[in-house]
């Protein structure tokens, strides 16, 4: 065992862990951060969207040094059936602002940079060090961690669990349950490398502008799931995620779905000639507000994906992770400054501060969405996209059929596929979940 005691131990060097460690180290706390990957980010799924606002609160001038790929000027939503997509596209030059709001990043590089900031702030960061269990006293108070290195037990006043979605440590220690299959999505993702000029030409981009495409429809074969395509500087991230419970039931493999997505006629021309270099699978917590576990206890707090803080509707995760990490760090600093012990009672402060932030407020707003999408997944991901695509085709095809007949046929096809009551019900439920 290591004699030296730390103020705080942070488990994990993802978005949440880095935010927490940096916040505490900057304020002078003695922080030890442990990461099992070879380097921070090595275990993280590549290619993602970064929300600048939340990072600014942690590293105000991050734009100067962080490895950012492209700032996003265009968002596309695709509703897909097997041969077509109906799209909504929003592009605005307003996004070419001095301090852009969203960027694509490559996590492996970004996390490395983020971790360097943590180290510069004075935290001790150890990679290739896996925490195997939490050290607890007989009453369950968390005293520290045990790692897989020789002589690897270390103690601290408080342990920040930022171990990501699996949350094995917390559940093993009996602090909370592992997420249920209907509350996690399995996402698979690939990086397709292309020369930057090719990417810029294919997506109509100038310089570091970037595009995000989100796609839903028959690509998930009736399961709750979405596909996405992001442009990086010299690569395109493409991926697709579905609820684990749906995958289990359908017997579909995520990789098979991604393959089909890539072969979709709308996608093929975007990827043509690229070289695939990375393939990764990762879980995303999608249970929303109702799935949030106990967030604090004697000697511990949990942040980020490990705490199920993920907004599936807006596909936001890292910003909630960063914010929860920052808030946990601030709460811990306050308690420490008051020289108070890290009891559950005192650590409740973290929950309070989190409740007041957008994190919990947003999750609350959509609290019924996961259940709705889950129970009506066939309608939302199979029937409607198919119907909408057909309607579009009927509408744009000029074939001598009178327009009035076309409209009638479309309405009929909607009704026959879903009873009118069902349709109205879905619309109503969707609106309510969104509200």
């Amino acid at each position, binding site marked *: 065992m290591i004699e030296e005691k730390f103020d705080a131990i942070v488990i994990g060097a993802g978005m949440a862990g880095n935010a927490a460690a940096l916040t505490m180290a900057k304020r002078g706390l003695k922080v030890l951060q442990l990461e099992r990957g*070879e380097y921070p980010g090595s275990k993280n799924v590549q290619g993602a969207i970064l929300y600048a606002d939340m990072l600014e609160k942690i590293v105000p001038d991050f734009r100067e040094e962080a490895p950012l790929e492209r700032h996003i000027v265009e968002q596309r939503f695709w509703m897909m059936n097997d041969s077509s997509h109906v799209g909504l596209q929003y592009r605005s030059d307003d996004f070419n602002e001095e301090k852009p709001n969203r960027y694509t990043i490559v996590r*492996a*590089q970004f996390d490395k940079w983020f971790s360097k900031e943590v180290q510069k702030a004075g935290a001790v960061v150890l990679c290739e060090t896996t925490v195997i269990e939490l050290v607890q006293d007989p009453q369950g108070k968390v005293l520290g961690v045990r790692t897989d*290195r020789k002589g690897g037990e270390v103690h601290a006043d408080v342990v920040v669990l930022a171990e990501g979605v699996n949350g094995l440590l917390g559940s093993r220690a009996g602090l909370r349950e592992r997420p249920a299959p209907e509350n996690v999505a399995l996402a698979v993702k690939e990086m397709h490398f292309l*020369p930057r000029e090719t990417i810029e030409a294919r997506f109509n981009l100038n310089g570091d502008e970037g595009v995000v495409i989100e796609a839903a429809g028959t690509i998930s074969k009736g399961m709750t799931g979405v596909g996405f395509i992001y442009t990086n500087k010299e690569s395109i991230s493409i991926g697709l995620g579905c609820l684990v419970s749906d995958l289990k039931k359908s017997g579909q493999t995520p990789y098979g779905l991604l393959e089909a997505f890539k072969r979709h006629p709308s996608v093929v021309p975007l990827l043509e000639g690229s070289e695939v*270099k990375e393939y990764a699978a990762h879980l995303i917590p999608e249970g929303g507000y109702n799935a949030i576990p106990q967030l604090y206890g004697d000697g511990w707090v949990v942040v980020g994906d490990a705490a199920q803080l993920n907004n599936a509707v807006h596909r936001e995760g890292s910003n909630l992770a960063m914010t929860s990490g920052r808030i946990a760090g601030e709460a811990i600093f306050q308690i420490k400054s008051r020289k108070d012990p890290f009891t559950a009672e005192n650590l409740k402060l973290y929950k309070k501060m989190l409740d007041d932030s957008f994190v919990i407020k947003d999750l609350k707003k959509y609290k019924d969405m996961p259940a709705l999408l889950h129970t009506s997944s066939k309608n939302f991901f199979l029937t409607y996209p198919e119907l909408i695509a057909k309607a579009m085709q009927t509408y744009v095809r000029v074939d001598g059929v009178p327009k009035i007949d076309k409209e009638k046929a479309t309405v009929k096809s909607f009704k026959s596929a879903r009873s009118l009551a069902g349709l109205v019900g879905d619309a109503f439920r969707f609106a309510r979940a969104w509200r």
Partner: protein
Amino acid sequence: MHIVVCIKQVPDSAQIRVHPVTNTIMRQGVPTIINPYDLFAIEEALRLRDKFGGEVTILTMGPPMASDSLRKALTFGADRAVLLTDRFFAGSDTLATSFALSSAITKIGEVFGAADIVFTGKQTIDGDTAQVGPGIAKRLGLTQLTYVAKVADLDLAGRSIEVHRRAEGGVQVLKSPLPCLITMLEGTNEIRRGSMMDALRAARAEVVTWSAKDAGIPDVTKCGLRGSPTVVKRVFAPTPRAEKAQFVDPAGEPPADALINAIFKRAPKLEAELAELSRGY
């Protein structure tokens, strides 16, 4: 005893991509690693230190970010790390690299004690030359023991070392005086995992960082581009073979027979040659 181990930070060659138009390396997202062969050198050095006492200094020449690799070497339990970094070193070939490293080893000797053994890896996976080790040995006048599979014995009092060196048709058992330079073969020992103490110490350690001047190199014309006799004229991707494989379509035939027919159709002389060979068997 003082051992210096030279390591290099290299891009993980398994993840290298080539730009299809400009034929340059696309480095984005390509992780860097400690040259895999150098891990064997580090491990052998640590074993000797553990057995005979003394210190292990890790040395690299490279850009500032090469300190990541040095820090990692410290987590294995090395005692000290020196980073040689300067814009004058950019573009060094093996002759210039061995000049810079040998100067730094001399300086390390002055500051931290003379090296009894200098280790390098057998070769790097980016340069792949296996020349830097011999180059350092020659410049420092050390006996050169390349392709060493194991250090069999070390006699500190008698100042001699016994090693097993891989030769083409077998293994040479060599005895040589100290100081010497060893280039370490792969596969002979697995790199250890440092303890929690080692890891903590490494995370906090200062990496000694030297410029050309700090390393006592007065004449930078021997470094970098200017000090390199070789010139890289052209870099290009291997020409992809025009035709892809001819696929065997067994249509009705047993696949094994279809495959054999395809092979012999493509190389008619092969059948007789194979018959000859299998007779030998």
